[in-house]
């Protein structure tokens, strides 16, 4: 009897372990515990007043949720791209610079520092969405039609992107003085929760509905698992791959709106720097295979917040922002090493040996 309950307990434990969402949750817990031990003040959330006299929440956790919003939005698109094309888009940072530059260009018109907005914000945003979708479509064509490896194809935009962004605004640095624009990256007057959180939640709801009511997720996975057999089943792999890149383009535009709104301006070489690394990390940390196939959207999104938590923790320990990539690179390497098939096989063999040894003892 006792062995039976034990076995079922281990089964439950095993199924929890096998569940993809466990990986990012475990990482999240680990980081939170580490922070709690190092400094319990990490969890303090206080309600203060900002310079405009509105109540705002502040604290490290709020920073994580606030700053992690863009990353979570990008992770949505990146997960789809990874699943369908078996590669990652490394041009998202540069694409954010382009979309952000477009938003400011439309808002500011010819003058780089206008007193009033030259166009409604929604128009600027829609133009940026279209531009970002076009660049996404460009990447998508290279990947899907010309069958170039995704990372090499997006390397083109990765190099040219920031140059194009600077070119859109003639290398000027436009500044939007209108306060309504700052709402998207700051706070809605009277609401203490940062606006990017709401935008991120809205994006998550939309993608959840899309995955629930359309076959996008299923198709993307099947194309990623086996392209030719999904073609034989009547899918159009070229179109589906291309579509995922266009969707990533939309995510990029939303992230760009938040990023530019935070500053009310833009710095072409610094905006969203190294964010492609974070987005790929989020997907990897979510337990999704980087070589395509099955994905779990919720795990990716949690992964994004874990990455942001890691970043904030590193900042808290006064690591320089330029040195951050080195630490993250180590995390990536550890992650991919542990998720590599050969390593997993060896580990499962080891655990089998251990179990066999235990049985003999019993």
């Amino acid at each position: 009897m006792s062995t039976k309950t034990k076995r079922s307990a281990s089964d439950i434990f095993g199924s929890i372990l096998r569940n993809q969402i466990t990986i990012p949750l475990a990482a999240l817990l680990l980081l939170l515990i580490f922070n709690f031990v190092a400094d319990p003040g990490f969890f303090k959330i206080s309600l203060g007043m900002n310079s405009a006299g509105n109540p705002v929440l502040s604290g490290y956790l709020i920073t994580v949720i606030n700053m992690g919003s863009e990353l979570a939005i990008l992770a949505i698109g990146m997960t789809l791209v990874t699943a369908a094309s078996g590669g990652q888009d490394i041009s998202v940072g540069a694409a954010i610079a382009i979309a952000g530059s477009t938003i400011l260009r439309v808002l500011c018109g010819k003058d780089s520092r206008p007193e009033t907005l030259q166009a409604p914000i929604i128009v600027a945003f829609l133009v940026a969405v279209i531009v970002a979708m076009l660049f996404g479509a460009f990447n998508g064509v290279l990947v899907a039609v010309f069958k170039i490896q995704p990372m090499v194809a997006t390397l083109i935009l990765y190099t040219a992107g920031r140059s194009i962004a600077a070119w859109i605004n003639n290398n000027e640095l436009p500044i939007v003085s209108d306060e309504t624009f700052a709402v998207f990256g700051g706070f809605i007057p009277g609401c203490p929760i940062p606006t990017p959180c709401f935008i991120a939640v809205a994006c998550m709801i939309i993608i959840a509905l899309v995955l629930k009511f359309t076959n996008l997720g299923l198709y993307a996975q099947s194309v990623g698992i086996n392209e030719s057999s999904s073609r034989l089943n009547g899918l159009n792999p070229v179109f589906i791959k291309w579509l995922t890149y266009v969707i990533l383009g939309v995510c990029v535009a939303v992230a760009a709106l938040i990023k530019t709104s935070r500053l009310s301006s833009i710095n072409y070489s610094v905006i969203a720097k190294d964010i492609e690394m974070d987005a790929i990390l989020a997907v990897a940390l979510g337990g999704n295979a980087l070589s395509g196939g099955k994905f779990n959207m919720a795990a990716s999104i949690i992964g994004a917040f874990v990455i942001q938590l890691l970043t904030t923790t590193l900042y808290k320990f006064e690591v320089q922002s330029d040195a951050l990539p080195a630490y993250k690179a180590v995390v990536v390497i550890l992650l991919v090493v542990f998720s590599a098939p050969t390593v997993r096989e060896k580990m499962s063999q080891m655990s089998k040996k251990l179990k066999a040894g235990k049985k003999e003892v019993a």
Partner: protein
Amino acid sequence: MLKKIKNMTDSNLLLTITIVVFFLMYIGAIVFQGKGFLKPQTFFNILNTNAALIILSCGLSLVMITGGIDISVGGMTALVSMCCAVYLDYKGGNVVVSMLIALAIGLGFGLVQGSLVAFLDIQPFIVTLAGMFFARGMTTIVNTNPFNVENAAFKALKETRILIPGMGSINKKGVYVPAYVEIGVVVALIIVILMFIMLKWTKLGRSFYAVGGNKQSALMLGINVKMTKFYSHIICSMLGGIGGYVYFLHVGSGAATHAQGAEMNAIASSIIGGTMLTGGVGNIIGTFFGVLSLSTIQNIVASAGLDQAWWTGITIASMLCLFLVVQSIVMARKKSSIKK
């Protein structure tokens, strides 16, 4: 003529395209941009500024021929130049040891990346992307601020010029100025020749092509696929170390922003030079001409008055895009010919 083109192998066709493009571009530059491009020194300056890029591109071509990729070379260049600069200036060390440091960094990166890619079967792009960020981050950790090296022995080596006999031009004052190259160019040319010989006539060199062309058949032929991949990453990273040192010798300073986008330029040069991203096809001579084409077009863009920084990025990207599409078409041609 058309029949001849049709019968060409992929490698030769792509190589021919590259060399023709380079000469057309250079002649075009002479015709449209005036006499500047006629001076031998203009050509040798292209070599001087791109010696490091030639070395990096050789390494990348090798990895790409084997079917992988390495985007950490730019970060490695920055790391090598920063480490050597710090060692030479703060520690007052000698030049030979600094070269050994560069090689050691290259070897270290090669060992880690190579074993991850070859023995653990992790995508080379992910591994080397992490390598790139690691190198850039480490550069900042070693030293934050950019600075010039004042070491006397190093400066003497940096200023060494090798004059080219029989070439030169008369400057505005009417004085004959002989054309010169820096030491880095000699190193780069030696590496090009060595790599060419290695790839063409040695067993190891041929096995790189075999692995890149078809892993399965290479395995059947008795080639150790994993070790071959491993060697390709080791050699590429070692060349990254050497290239980093040559870069350092050219600029004479250490900074975290050094060689920004060098990996992209190196990949672009290899692709323009006819190396296939899918592996198995490529030529070091083509890569050499790829670097020359790339820098010639940069020079043309700069001398045409479009000297804002963004034009260079956009030109390289569009050129890379063009050649990628050409490759894709060549691949399609191959497939259709097989079907026939």
